């Protein structure tokens, strides 16, 4: 998917993560801030990158502020932000396909 415009998903509440995606310059630039950076920083980063890869996103600037979200929440927020940036988040989501 192509990031067409800036979009955001998630909140700054505990156990959540706020993800912002913006159009990129041909690569993925990830900026991560997390309340559990020392413990889980690498795993969180991997989850974000895997999710973007699954969605076929190859060019984006991604900012994430993590408040101790589980992997399933991180995936949900990244996916929602990407689909929102394509105006495709409201219907016909490929559940079980690109979303899994």
């Amino acid at each position, binding site marked *: 998917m192509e990031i067409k415009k800036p979009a955001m*998903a*998630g909140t700054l*509440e*505990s*156990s*959540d993560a706020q993800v912002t995606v913006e159009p990129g310059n041909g690569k993925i630039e990830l900026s991560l801030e997390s309340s559990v950076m020392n413990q889980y920083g690498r795993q969180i980063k991997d989850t974000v990158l895997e999710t973007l890869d699954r969605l076929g996103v190859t060019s984006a600037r991604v900012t994430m502020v993590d408040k101790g*979200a*589980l*992997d*399933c*929440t991180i*995936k*949900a*927020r990244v*996916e*929602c932000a990407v*689909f*929102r940036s394509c105006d495709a*988040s*409201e*219907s*016909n*989501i490929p*559940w*079980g396909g690109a*979303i*899994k």
Partner: protein
Amino acid sequence: MIPRPRPERFRLRRTMMFMNAQKPGLIKDAYIYGCDSIMLDLEDAVAENQKDAARFSLYHALKTIDYGDTEVIVRINGLDTPHWQEDIRVCVAGGADGIRIAKCESAKDVLTVEAAVEKAEEEFGVEKGRTLLMAALESPKGILNAYEICAASSRMFGVAISGGDFRKCMQTTPQRDGIDMVTARGLMLIAARAAGVQCFDTVFTNLDDNEGFEAEVRQNKAMGFDGKSLINPKQIRLVHQLFAPTEKEVIQAEKIVRAVRENAAKGLGVFTVDGKMIDIAFLPGAERTLRLARACGMYEGDLV
């Protein structure tokens, strides 16, 4: 991926607790509270501009979190909104046990949802008929059509009244003695029993009024409800306590089940247990008491 077992149409549902599907902090460990069912909410708890985000969050929660024996129901948006179809797709794809139809007013509403569920089961390769349905009656029309709603589909396991909206329609507010909704609760219970489905009472929203809550739960049990919708984990224990049979009732039920079976073998239809006349008509009630007692940890025998 957590594969959930095939949902049971009739199971114990004393407590159904609402949870905002959009809030990860709530849904990640909802099963630890020990309610019989959790109701992940895509409707009123989720702001209009977060409906999409709630679905992504719901999908991954359903696929990732092991809710164990806790039933997982999802409350979808009303049929008068642009959201309900995608809500159904995500529920079925994620493998929710059941769907709660908001603001249900007719059998046609149930059939509309059923058709969409069936289409989604086909789309996502889910066993046909797996996804159960229940309806929330929130208007006078819904209450008056309760029977046709209850009987509309073999997927239907129950109906619940939704007090907030209903009281607004009726120009009333919650009363201490429950007089504001006694007719509606009664009509809905009769309809549910006539159709052979379960029946659930509305939420009690004043968390500081313990006395009022207990009075309402006692009335619910006396009226014959199967359970109650809840908004807070701290309400669970009292409902389970009050809905549990007494020890005396369990002993009596055990005697009745034994006596009916033994006497049937001897060819006797009517007899006495502890001086009371008993016949086959008492069996289902006694068996229900024993099943409830087992669920409450009060019975470990093998009669049910």
